[in-house]
Every structure is written in structure tokens, then in C-alpha cells.
């Protein structure tokens, strides 16, 4: 593994406990070994970008973190809890702390925007913190700038609006960590940039940390404190954007060129 980690990052990390810690994670589908021993840490208030080609197992990695998929080997510790060992109740509790923004937004198409946002609250009334449900929904929509869309159906929204509503639905439980699966894929550059700015704003206001999967180098450059390159199922290189973009390793170089040329 190529480590380009600068000293100042290392020092600041030593004082804090990681929110997410993955050790030697392995995942197979039949004979197809997708993740071959991944190590990763996410520290408070940090945005880590994971880069990897399509099909390299990035979505699988995120899904393992909230046990949408089970791992075959390795440790996953989120907020101090070992994910594979939790019972359903504990798992649901952790999942309220970890927001997940799905690749295609994953809004429930049979429900209005309001019902979409209400959905996470129905099994987690404790998360309302005594507030009025309608107010929470409106506040969440306001934070993504879509108060007026509250009664629309997902089919009536543009791609960028869907992404925002999905983000609002994630934020309504006030998570500590947000997992973004390709937040800008499929959007035009201007809308993509709006989403990136929104992600930064949310991090700033709510003090969240994020693990972000992307192909989008602009997104990675703007948002990442640290980047990890996933290649052939292993954690191939790590560093800040500027470090990796100047890295001499041919694979990393090729990666930057290839992804950038899209």
C-alpha cells in the first residue's frame, strides 16, 4: 500500500478515536472475491473519499458498514460497536447514527416527499426529541432548499432534487456519520456542484463526518480531507488530494488520468 499521509494529519488523528474502523475486511460473492482485505479509519469531522473503478466493490464496502451485506472476514467497528456482532435492536440504533445516501437516491416512489421524510421517524420516535414531526420534516427540507416540494411525488422531481430530498431524509435522524454512495453521479456539473456545496454546508452545520464514494474528481478535490484508492479489492493508496495527484506511482497516475478524462 502506498501511504502518502502527511504528518499533520497523522498527529491530529492520534488524539481522537476513530468513528469507523475497518480491519482486514473481506467479502466474496461465490468465487468472486470483491474485497480482499480492506483497512480504513474515519475520524471525527473528517471527509474521506474512496475512489475506485466501477465494479471495484465500493458500494459493497459501504453496505457492509451498516450490515446491508454481511462480511466474510474482518472487523468493522462503528462508533465503538462491532457491527457483525450486534443484535437487531442495537443495529437499528447504530443505523440511526449512520446516514446512508444511496446511489440512485432510493426515494420511495409510491410516497410523497413528506411521507418519504416521515418514514425514518416512524420506527424511531425517540429521534424526534419531543419536536413536532411536521416541523422536523419542514426543517430538513429547508436545509436542502426544497420546502416547496413537500407534496410532490418523486417522479415529479429532477435528479438533483431527488438527491436533495434523499439527503434530507438521511438528515432527519441527525446522524453523526453520513455514507455517500456516488452523490454526484448522473448529475450535470452545475447540479453536482450544488450537491457538493450542500454536503459541505451540512458537515459544517451538523458536525458530521462522511465517507464518500465517487468517480468525480472535482467532488473528491473539493470535499476530501483524505482519499483512498481502491484497486483490485485492496486499499491501494492513501493521501490527500494534492499528495495523490502528485504521486509517482504509475497506477495512481493512471487512475487520476482515467477518471479525469471522463
Amino acid at each position: 500500500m502506498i501511504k502518502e499521509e502527511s504528518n499533520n494529519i497523522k498527529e491530529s488523528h492520534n488524539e481522537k478515536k476513530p468513528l469507523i474502523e475497518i480491519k482486514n475486511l473481506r467479502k466474496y460473492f461465490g468465487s468472486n472475491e470483491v474485497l480482499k482485505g480492506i483497512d480504513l479509519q474515519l475520524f471525527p469531522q473528517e471527509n474521506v473519499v474512496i475512489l475506485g473503478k466501477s465494479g471495484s466493490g465500493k458500494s459493497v464496502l459501504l453496505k457492509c458498514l451498516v450490515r446491508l451485506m454481511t462480511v466474510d472476514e474482518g472487523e468493522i467497528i462503528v462508533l465503538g460497536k462491532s457491527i457483525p456482532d450486534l443484535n437487531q435492536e442495537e443495529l437499528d440504533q447504530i443505523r440511526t447514527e449512520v446516514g446512508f445516501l444511496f446511489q440512485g437516491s432510493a426515494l420511495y416512489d409510491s410516497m410523497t416527499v413528506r411521507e418519504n421524510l416521515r418514514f425514518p421517524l416512524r420506527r424511531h420516535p425517540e429521534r424526534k426529541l419531543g419536536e413536532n414531526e411536521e416541523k422536523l420534516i419542514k426543517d430538513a427540507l429547508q436545509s436542502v432548499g426544497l420546502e416547496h416540494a413537500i407534496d410532490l411525488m418523486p417522479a415529479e422531481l429532477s435528479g438533483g432534487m431527488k438527491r436533495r430530498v434523499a439527503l434530507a431524509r438521511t438528515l432527519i435522524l441527525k446522524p453523526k456519520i453520513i455514507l455517500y454512495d456516488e452523490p454526484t453521479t448522473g448529475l450535470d456539473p452545475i447540479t453536482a456542484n450544488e450537491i457538493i456545496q450542500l454536503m459541505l454546508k451540512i458537515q459544517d452545520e451538523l458536525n458530521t463526518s462522511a465517507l464518500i464514494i465517487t468517480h468525480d474528481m472535482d467532488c473528491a478535490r473539493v470535499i476530501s480531507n483524505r482519499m483512498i484508492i481502491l484497486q483490485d479489492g485492496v486499499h491501494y493508496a492513501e493521501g490527500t488530494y494534492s499528495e495523490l495527484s502528485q504521486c509517482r506511482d504509475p497506477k495512481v497516475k493512471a487512475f487520476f488520468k482515467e477518471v479525469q478524462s471522463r
Partner: protein
Amino acid sequence: MEYIPNKIVDFLEETGNFSEFTGRFFKQAFRRPFEWKEMIHQCYIIGVQSLFLVASTGFIMGLVLTLQVRPTMVRFGASAFMPDMIGISFIREIGPVLTALICAGKIGSSIGAELGSMKVTEQIDAMEVSGTNPFKYLVVTRVWACIIMLPFLVIAADVVGLFGSYLIENMKGEVTFELYFNRVFEVLLIGDVVPATVKSFFFGLVIGIVGCYKGYNSEKGTEGVGRAANTAVVVASLLLFVVDFFAVLIADIFYVI
């Protein structure tokens, strides 16, 4: 292992997965928290989606069956037995099977497509991470709704079908409404009605479970969703006949007439 063709292995694997899915339904079907609101909504959707279709096919079947059978009965001088004959065959067999097949096409495919697209677009995953058990919310409610609604739809088909039959009888044989239906109810035994109703519950179960299973295990891509809807109909229709055969076999043992 080499000698066993892949198709057979696939079939056995699929059967195993399907049985596991069915088991999972029964395990969760009675466990709280129960998603009442969604289940009632699904009952309503199923009713609205298929009532008209079921009733109109039932009506046409009643007309056609009477037109076809009548000449033979007349030839044997047995036209007075027309209500008996149509009544029994409708209530026992034609009503339930016709309704179930229509519903397999209409409801089974729509459940398959709906859950399939939810699966493919990660909506099911999104439910899971937001603390709602998607199996309970989506599968248990839909299967229950099918089980509950199928008998009602069968009754609707029976009533409308017999009415269609009466219309023909009235035209050709000048049988009055009272006479026709008195005759039908006189001849019907509990041994005709109970098995037909019980059978309808099982038809509902088959349609719901197969639709949900195919949708829930849909492959990625729009093609996968289409295939889920399509195979849901094919498999459900086939299974319906198997269930029907066993239902008739068992009813035959219990009610010897």
C-alpha cells in the same frame, strides 16, 4: 455432480430459496409490530385493481358456459337442472380458478414489478437502514392482503357469473330470477362452499408469495424487473393448478357426496 444438468440444479436451488422465503413469511406473519395501515392500503389496491376484471370475466364465463351446456342438457330433457349444474361448477371450480388466474396475471405481476423495482433502486435497502423491517412492511402486508381479498373476489366472480347464466336461462328457458337462484342455493351443499373458500385463501397465498418472492429477488437492471414480473405470473399460474389439484383431492376425501 457433472452429470446433473445445470437446469435441475438451478431448479432445486430456486425451490429451496422459495421454501425458505415462504417459511420466513409464516415466521413473521403473526409477529408484531404489524403494518396495519399498509396492509389495508394493499387490500384496497388489490380490490380496485382486479374487481372489474374479475367480475367481467366471471360474467362472460357465466354466459358462455350456459350457452354451451344448454343444448346438451335440453337434448337429455334435463334443462331444469341447468341452475344446479352451473351453480355447482361455478362455485366449486370455475369461480375460484378463473379469479385466481386473473389475479395471478394482474396482482402477481404488479407486485413482482413493484418490489423488483424497489429492490433494484435500493429502496428496500433504504427501508432497512431506516429501522423498518422491509420484509414485514412490503412482503407480509401484500401476502396477507392477497389472502384476505381473494375469497371476496371469488365471491364477486361467482355472483356475477351466476347472474350471467341466469340471463341466458331467462332468455332461452324463461326461468325467473327467484326460481333460478332458489334452485342454485337449494342444491349447494356446505361441501361445495367450504372447500372452495378455503381453496381461495390458498390461491391468495400463492399469488402473494410468488409475486413478492420474484420481486424481492429481482436481478439488477430494468430487464431483471421485467423478468421478475413475468416469471411471477408464470410460476404463480402453474402453482395454482397444483394447489387446486390437491385441494380437490383433499376435499374429495372429506366430503363424499
